[in-house]
C-alpha cells in the first residue's frame, strides 16, 4: 500500500508536464480535447502524456474484456439462476379476450403473449429481426380496433418498403388468426440495418 493514501493530493506536489498539471491534462482528455487548448496541443510533452493517458484508459477496459473472454464457462451458473428468477416474474399485461362459439367459454391471451406472437412472426421473415411491439387501443373489448406499432432491424440490401409491407401483412394475419384482435393498421419502423453474418453488433 502506498503511504499516506488517504491524504488529498497537495496541489504543490502535483507533477506538471510543460507547465500543465496532470489533472488538467486528464480533464482535457475527458472533454474530448475540446475546446482545443493551444498550450497543450502545442507541447510535444503534453501530447505524449495525453497518449499515455489514452492508452491506460483504453487498456483498463480492454484488459477486463480479455479476462472475461478467457473464462466464459464461469458464466453458466449465474445466468441460469438469473433466467429462473426472471421467468417467475414475467408480467402478462392486459388480457385480450378471444371469441369462442360457446358463449360460456371465456378465453383470453395476455398482451405479453400477443407481443411474443408478433416477435416470432417478424423473426420468421427472412432479413428481419423484430424490435419492440406496442398495442394502441382497447384490448379488453373484443372487436375494438387496435393499432400495432413495431420497430425492426432489416438486413442490408433488402427493399425496405417491400419488407415492411410483407411484415405488416404477416402481423395482421397472425394476430387475426390467433387473438381475434381487430387490427386497424400496423406501423412498421425500421430503425436498424444489419449486415448478414457479421459478428459486429
Amino acid at each position, binding site marked *: 500500500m502506498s503511504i499516506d*493514501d488517504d491524504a488529498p493530493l497537495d496541489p504543490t506536489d502535483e507533477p506538471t508536464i510543460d507547465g500543465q498539471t496532470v489533472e488538467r491534462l486528464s480533464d482535457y482528455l475527458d472533454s474530448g480535447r475540446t475546446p482545443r487548448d493551444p498550450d497543450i496541443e502545442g507541447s510535444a510533452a503534453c501530447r505524449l502524456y495525453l497518449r499515455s493517458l489514452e492508452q491506460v484508459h483504453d487498456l*483498463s477496459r*480492454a484488459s477486463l474484456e480479455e479476462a472475461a*473472454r478467457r473464462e466464459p464457462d464461469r*458464466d453458466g451458473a*449465474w445466468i441460469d439462476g438469473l433466467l429462473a428468477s426472471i421467468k417467475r416474474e414475467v408480467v402478462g399485461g392486459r388480457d385480450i379476450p378471444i371469441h369462442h362459439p360457446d358463449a360460456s367459454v371465456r378465453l383470453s391471451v395476455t398482451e*405479453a403473449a400477443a407481443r411474443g406472437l408478433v416477435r416470432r412472426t417478424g423473426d420468421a421473415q427472412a432479413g428481419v429481426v*423484430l424490435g419492440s411491439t406496442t398495442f394502441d387501443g382497447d384490448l379488453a373489448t373484443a372487436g375494438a380496433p387496435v393499432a400495432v406499432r413495431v*420497430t425492426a432491424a432489416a438486413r442490408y440490401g433488402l427493399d425496405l418498403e417491400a419488407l415492411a409491407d410483407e411484415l405488416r401483412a404477416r402481423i395482421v394475419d397472425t394476430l387475426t388468426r390467433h387473438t381475434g384482435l381487430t387490427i386497424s393498421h400496423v406501423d412498421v419502423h425500421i430503425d436498424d440495418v444489419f449486415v448478414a453474418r457479421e459478428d459486429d*453488433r
Partner: protein
Amino acid sequence: MLEDDPLLEAADATLAVRARDGDVHSYEVLARRHGPLMRVYAARLLGSDAESDDVVQDAFLTAWRRLVDLDEPARVRNWLMRIVSNKAIDRLRVRRDHDDVDSWDPPAPQHDGPERVVEARLQLDAMWAALDKLPLDQRRCWLLRETADYSYAEIAEALDLPVSTVRGKIARARAFLITEMEAWR
C-alpha cells in the same frame, strides 16, 4: 442457445427493446454478451472473486425489473455497468457496516513477476497485472471513473470519501499505471 440464433447478431438496442417487451430470450442474449465483462469488473471492484457472480446476477435481475427506465436502448451496456457498480458498492457498504474496515483488507494480490508479463508479451496482461497491483481503493476509484464513467462526485458519494481524496487516489492510480505501462509504448 442455438448457434444460428439470429438474435446472437442483433444489436444491443434491438435486444434491449425486446427485453423491455418481456422477451426473456433477448435478455438472455444480452446477459451472455455482457455478463462476463460485468463479472470480471465486479470482481475487480470488490477485490475478490467470491461475490462477483452474486453481484452480477443481482444486478441483471434489478436491470430486468427496471428496463422501462432505460431511455437509450443502444447504451444498455453502460446502463448495466452502472447497475453492477451500484450493486458492488452496496456490498462494500454492508462490509463497512458489519466488519472492522481494516480487518477486511484483502490478501496481498499475487503479483505476476515482470518476467512472466514480458514473456507473455501481451499488453493486456501487463495492464491486468498493473491493475492488480493497485491498492484496492485506488483501483475502485480508477475503475469507476474509467470503465463506468462515474464523475468524481459520484465516486465520492458511492465510496463515502471526500471528493479531494477521490481525486488524489485517481491521480496516484493514473501515475502508477502510466509508469507500469511505459514499456509498452
